[in-house]
C-alpha cells in the first residue's frame, strides 16, 4: 500500500462511517418520542431533571446504568419503592439506612417538598423509558432475592415462623440435615438430582393409581411418607434417580428424623399443589 492509498482509505472510511452514523442519528430522532414516552415530559419532569443535575446525583448513582458506581441504579426505583416512601427517604435518608449497617449513607440534600416531588416525577418518567428489557432482572437496593443467599451474607438461616406443622415442615425441608432441598427443588420443571416436588400431591395420587405402582400407600400423604422412610418401595427410573433398580436417595431417614418431623415434612409437601 502506498501512502496515497492509505490516505484515501482514511478519508473514505471516515466519510462512510460519519455518513452512516448521521443517517442512524436522524432515524433515532424519529423514534425518540415513542421509545422515551416523550409526550409525558411535563414541567415537573423537566424541573426534576434540573434537580437531578444540580445535586450532581449522577456522580454517585447510575440512571439507565450510566453514572457512578457508588450508589444503586435508580432506573426502576419508582416502580420498586413508590412515591410515599421516596418522599420520606429524600427528606432524611438516615432514617432508612446507616453507615454502620450498610457501609454507606446518602447525605441529606435539604430539598423542598416541591423539588422532591419533581425529582420523583423525573424518575417516574425515566422508569417508563423503553430500555430493551434492561435490567434483565431487577436491581435491588438492599436484601437478597435468592432463597438461602442471605445465609451466605452472614444472616442466620431462617427459623420456623410459627409452631404450625406445615411451617415446621417447611423449615425442616430447607434445613441441612436432612438436606431435602439439596436434591429436590419445589419449582416446576427443576430437577436437581432427584425429581422436583412441585405439584407432589397430584403426582403422588397418579402414581398410586398407576398399575406400575409397587408400594403399599393408599393416599398421597401415605405415598410421601413411604418415599421418605423407604425410598425403595417404589423406584422411579432416571439416570440420577436410581441405579440397578435401587433408589439413590438415603434410606435412613426413618432413623435420623423424628416421627413428628416426618409428619411435618409430609404436611408441608402436601401443600405444594
Amino acid at each position, binding site marked *: 500500500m502506498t501512502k496515497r492509498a*492509505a490516505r484515501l482509505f482514511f478519508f473514505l472510511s471516515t466519510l462512510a462511517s460519519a455518513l452512516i452514523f448521521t443517517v442512524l442519528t436522524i432515524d433515532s430522532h424519529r423514534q425518540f418520542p415513542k421509545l422515551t414516552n416523550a409526550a409525558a415530559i411535563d414541567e415537573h419532569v423537566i424541573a426534576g431533571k434540573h434537580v437531578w443535575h444540580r445535586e450532581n446525583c449522577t*456522580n454517585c448513582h447510575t440512571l439507565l446504568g450510566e453514572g457512578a458506581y457508588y450508589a444503586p441504579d435508580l432506573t426502576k426505583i419508582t416502580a420498586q419503592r413508590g412515591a410515599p416512601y421516596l418522599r420520606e427517604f429524600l427528606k432524611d435518608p438516615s432514617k432508612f439506612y446507616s*453507615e454502620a449497617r450498610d457501609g454507606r449513607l446518602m447525605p441529606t440534600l435539604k430539598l423542598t417538598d416541591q423539588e422532591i416531588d419533581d425529582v420523583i416525577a423525573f424518575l417516574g418518567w425515566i422508569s417508563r423509558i*423503553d430500555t430493551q428489557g434492561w435490567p*434483565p432482572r431487577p436491581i435491588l437496593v438492599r436484601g*437478597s432475592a435468592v432463597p438461602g443467599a442471605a445465609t451466605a451474607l452472614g444472616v442466620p438461616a431462617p427459623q420456623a415462623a410459627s409452631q404450625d406443622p406445615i411451617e415446621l415442615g417447611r423449615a425442616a425441608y430447607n434445613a441441612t440435615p436432612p438436606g431435602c432441598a439439596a436434591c429436590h427443588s419445589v419449582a416446576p420443571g427443576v430437577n436437581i438430582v432427584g425429581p422436583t416436588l412441585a405439584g407432589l400431591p397430584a403426582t403422588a395420587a397418579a402414581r398410586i393409581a398407576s398399575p406400575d405402582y409397587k408400594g403399599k400407600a393408599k393416599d398421597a400423604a401415605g405415598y410421601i411418607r413411604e418415599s421418605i422412610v423407604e425410598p425403595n418401595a417404589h423406584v422411579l427410573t432416571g439416570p440420577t434417580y436410581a441405579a440397578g433398580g435401587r433408589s439413590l436417595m438415603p434410606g435412613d431417614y426413618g432413623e435420623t428424623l423424628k416421627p413428628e418431623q416426618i409428619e411435618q415434612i409430609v404436611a408441608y409437601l402436601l401443600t405444594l399443589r
Partner: protein
Amino acid sequence: MRFRSQRVAYPYFAVALLLFGLQMVFGLLAAAKYLGPDPLLNVLPFDVVKAIHTNLLLVWLLTGFMGAAYYLVPEESRVELHSVRLAYVQLGIWTAMGVTAVVGYVFRWTAGNKLLEQPFPLKLVIVIVMLMFLYNLGMTIRAAGRFTTTEGVLVGGLACTALLYLPALFEFDNYTVAVFYRWWTVHLWVEGVWEMIQGALLAFLLIRLSGVDREVLEKWLYVIVGLTFISGVLGTAHHYYWIGVPRYWLPIGGFFSALEPLVFLGMAMYAYYAIRRSGLAHPNRMALHWTIGSAIFSALGAGLLGLAHTWPAVNKWTHGTLITPMHGHMAFFGAYVMIVLGMITYALPGLTGRSEDSRETAANFWSFWLQISGMFGMTMAFAAAGITQTYLERILGIGYLDTQLKLQVHFLMLVVAGILFTAGVALFLWDFFFLAGRPVAVPEREGLAAARSPAV
C-alpha cells in the same frame, strides 16, 4: 529543542503535572470512601470528589496535549510559534478555568452531567481557549508553509476535540436525547479524535526515538486513524444500549466496537516495527519506556478490557457495574497518560538546556514501574470487584448495598494499588520539578534553528 518558542511547552507540562498530582489526592479519597464509613460525608461527599477526580484528568490531559502540540508543531513545521504571548495568555485562562471548576465543585457549582460537569460559563471559556489555541497553531503552520502528516493528524485531532465539545453546550429536556449527545463529546473524544492525538504523538516519538523512516510510519498512521474512525464512530453505538434508543444500535455497537482493539493492536505493532527496525538505541531510554508502554497498555486497557464488556449479551449484565472503571482506568492511563508522560520525558532534556540524548534518572525509572504496577493492581481490584458485583447483584439478585459489603477486600486492594500508583506519580513530579533543572530560553542548536526559520 530546536526553536526558542518551544519553551512554552514547559509551563504547560508543569501545570499538567500539578493537576495530575491533585487528581491523585481526589482519587485516593474516592477509593477510601468505598471502604467507608465516611467522616467527610457532609463536607466533601463522594459525588464531589469523583467529579473533581475525573475533571482534573480531562483538564490535565488536555493541558498536556496542548504543551505537546506547542512543542511538536514548531519542530515539524520548522518555524517559531506564531505568538508565544498568546500561548501564555491561553495557559493562564485555561488554568484559571480549571481551578475555578474544581473550587466550584466543592461549593456545589456544577452542571451535574457526567464528565461534562463544567457550568455553562466555564464551558464557554473552554471553547474560547480552544479557539485561541487552534488559531495560534494554524497561523504557525501557515507561516511555515510546511505541514507534515504527523502534525496534520495531531492538529486535526485537536480541532475535532474542540468541535465535538460543542454538543455539550446544548441542553435537552429529554434525558435520553441528552445522554445520546453527551456521548458525541465523551466517546468521540476518547475513542475517536484523542486516538488521533495519541497516534500522532506516538508517530512523532517513534520517528525521533527510533529514527525509523518517516514515510513508512506516516503511511501506517493514516491506516490507524482510518481504523479508529471506522470502529470509533459507529462504535459510539456501544453507549447506546438500554438507554431508550432504537434496537439496531445493539448489533452495530457489538460489531464495530469489536473492531476497536484493531486500532490499538495497530499501534502496538507500529511500536514493535519501529523497535525491530532500529533497536532500542535511543539514549533517552525513559521516553522509549513511556512510548512503548503507551502502545502496549492502551492495547490491554482500551482494546482488550473494552472488548470484555462491549458485546450486548455481556453488557446486559455488566452495564453500570465496577467493570466500567476497570476498563476506564487502564484505558485512560495507557492511551493518554503514558503518551503525555512520554512526550514530557522526551522533551524535558531539551527544555532544560541539556542534550536531548542525555537523560535517564532513577526517579523517572521508578516512577514508570510504580505507575505500571499500581495501575495493574487497580485494574485487577476493579475487575475482581466488578465480576463479583455482576454475579451477586445482577445475576443472583442480591441487593446493591449487601453486594458492596462483600466487595470490601477488593476496595482495600484498590486503595493499596492506588497508593503505589500515587507514589509513582509523586516521583515523576519530583523528577520534573526538582531534578530536571530549570527551563532555558536558548535552543540547543540555535544556529540550525535560525537558518531554518523563515522569520529570520
